[in-house]
């Protein structure tokens, strides 16, 4: 039997948790130096890539426009941050979010191709399609659609972007008008940025099987992850694809200590950095229900009738309610648990314990790697690189050095030209 594959590891740079951490000057999120230092650490640790999520309004802004003073904002927008990193590190890949509801395929193709060319082929496009009400207030969405139409439109957007990347013009389709060639050096299929997609619902799994080359997803348990993995990979042959050509990377929040007790203590301390009213406000937004009038130490009230939302939003709400019921969490406890992981799986403990967990997920065919959420930056990343990576590398779970070539070459083991 062949050696089990190593895991692909991505790190999330766009969400700075626990910004009151004494090791962080939170104003740094607006400087290039902040991201450059993170990227150099990630490259020292041989992470495969880093991820910049995005949205087009302030995270602390409510739908009605009111602003939460305590919420940290996003820092540099993804393209600027990635451009600032392209020359600062040599091997690290970059995944950036560009939403097809607010950017035309031409603009996305030009931006991502430019970043790909500037970085010597290390770019991935995280395709996001959903409209967000408060973003709509800043940018008129290009389309307002139901989920099925949204997926169909996203698929066409991906096809248009790939065509433009390849140096060809794009013909008019159902959703997008014809577009002339980008006028950039042509990127044929194997030289293109990676297509990354994020989601969870059954409809998403079908789309990922058709178009995604990497998937970021929220999976709370090993069982959920196995089912998701089997579903996406199982649907790929039907879409004419080899299941090896899509890498599934669930989010994983990691809090590390030299001992389990030290890690637990650190996790509790990190939780205490978030003010209670802040985490409860975030939970209210997730559940679509104002919890501010309820006792924070009391139980979660029943859901209001007739809640709508996308399939992913409904699934996340159900997951939160299940968590509260299973663990007997109060509102505050649930808000902290939700704020920590946002539905992703979490690990708190020693590097050896983390290696055991990652090996178990890999061996159970639950994932091809992880998108790591750091409980704080830069400290959480420093811990991951300094404490966990040597152990993961020793056990063959993570790469000890980079392969040559583009991000695509590195992730899919293609021999560079």
């Amino acid at each position, binding site marked *: 039997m062949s050696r089990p594959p190593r895991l692909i590891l991505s790190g999330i740079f766009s969400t700075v948790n626990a910004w009151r951490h004494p090791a962080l000057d939170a104003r740094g999120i607006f400087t290039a130096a902040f991201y450059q230092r993170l990227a150099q650490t990630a490259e020292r640790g041989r992470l495969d890539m880093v991820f910049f999520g995005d949205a087009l309004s302030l995270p602390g802004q409510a739908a009605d426009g009111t602003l939460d003073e305590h919420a940290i904002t996003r820092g540099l927008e993804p393209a600027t941050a990635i451009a600032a990193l392209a020359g600062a590190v040599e091997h690290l890949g970059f995944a950036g979010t560009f939403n097809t509801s607010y950017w035309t395929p031409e603009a996305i193709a030009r*931006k991502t191709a430019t970043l790909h060319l500037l970085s010597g082929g290390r770019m991935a496009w995280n395709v996001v399609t959903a409209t967000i009400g408060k973003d709509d207030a800043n940018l008129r969405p290009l389309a307002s659609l139901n989920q099925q139409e949204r997926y169909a439109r996203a698929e066409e957007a991906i096809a248009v972007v790939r065509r433009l990347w390849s140096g060809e013009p794009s013909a008019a389709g159902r959703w997008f008008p014809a577009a002339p060639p980008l006028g950039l050096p042509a990127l044929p299929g194997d030289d293109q940025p990676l297509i990354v997609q994020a989601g969870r619902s059954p409809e998403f799994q079908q789309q990922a099987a058709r178009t995604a080359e990497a998937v970021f997803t929220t999976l709370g348990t090993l069982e959920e992850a196995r089912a998701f993995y089997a579903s996406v990979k199982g649907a790929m042959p039907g879409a004419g694809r080899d299941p090896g050509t899509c890498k599934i990377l669930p989010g994983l929040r990691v809090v590390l200590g030299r001992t389990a007790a030290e890690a637990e203590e650190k996790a509790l301390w990190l939780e205490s950095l978030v003010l209670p009213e802040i985490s409860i406000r975030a939970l209210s937004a997730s559940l679509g229900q104002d919890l501010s009038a309820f006792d924070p130490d009391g139980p979660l009230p029943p859901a209001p009738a007739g809640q709508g939302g996308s399939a992913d939003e409904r699934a996340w709400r159900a997951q939160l309610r299940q968590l509260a019921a299973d663990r007997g969490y109060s509102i505050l406890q649930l808000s902290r648990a939700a704020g920590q992981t946002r539905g992703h799986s979490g690990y708190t403990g020693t590097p050896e314990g983390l290696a055991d967990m990652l090996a178990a997920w890999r061996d159970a065919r639950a994932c091809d790697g992880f998108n790591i959420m750091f409980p704080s930056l830069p400290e959480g990343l420093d811990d991951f690189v300094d404490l966990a990576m040597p152990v993961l590398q020793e056990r063959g779970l993570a790469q000890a050095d980079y392969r040559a070539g583009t991000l695509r070459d590195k992730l899919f083991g293609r021999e560079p030209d």
Partner: protein
Amino acid sequence: MTAGHFVVGAVLAAPTPAELAQAGGPPAARLAAWYLDSVQRLEEQGVDFVVIADGSVSGQGAPAGDGVRPDAFALLAFVAAQTRRIGLVAAFDAHLAEPFHVARALASLDHASGGRAGWQLRDEAEPTGRAREFAAVLGKLWQSWAPGALLADRASGRFLDAAGVQPIDHAGDWFRVRGPLSIARPPQGAPVRLTGQPHAGAIAIDKVPLDARGYNSHAFDWCAPWAIDAGSILRLAEIAPRDGPVDPDAVERLRAGYDAGALGGVLLGCATPPAARLRFCRDALPLLRSQPAHPAFSFPFTPTPTACPAPRA
């Protein structure tokens, strides 16, 4: 106003695929190498700011119009990380862009470059009013964070002062933007505008009659009060020197215009060959700048509302 020395800006025309191929190195690295080398050279030559047109702009500003067409904002952010002084100006068309995206990208560039971002609307004179409204929305978004509104105060847990981060609630003929901007106030307050029209806080570019060698053919009899008393406009003459020896008479006219306060400097247009740019900086700049080693360049403009008379042709 003046920037304390004779200002030189340069429009960097995009390389053609053939020029890119000559950059050497592996094909995947050539775009990065070409732009980095080009802008670093401009910086070494004492050029104060570089203008790069976004690839979405048709014609690209290149004389042949067949240059490669990268995203200017990403390109400038890449270059910012590996330069120290040079101003970084993105030129784009309002009819192809959205103000929220552009305001955020330019604010990000301004942060990432330590206050070196600038912008130019290439279609600012278009008749529909979209460009004018676009520029107004950019200004409102950059001002949506008051100075000092970014707190990042660990003790109170307040990241920002909500009283200083306000929606703009813009609703016009072309755009509806609630705001505020989703990134903190740019270091310059607002990235510097490059314009062919008189706007407070801007660098104004005048196309002047050129002689056969691409230099200003006439003395500067512009109304000096516009350049000086308006207090916040830096007026540059656009020239396009050909390759060959520097024209001493034209340089003297520039010097006289600068000394009289009518002129802040020049913009070397996109038709200027790289060798001519180099020659201008090497041979003409020492005559134009009493301080050859200029201090770290910053766009030293405070946007203040000022009534400006129209420039004379």
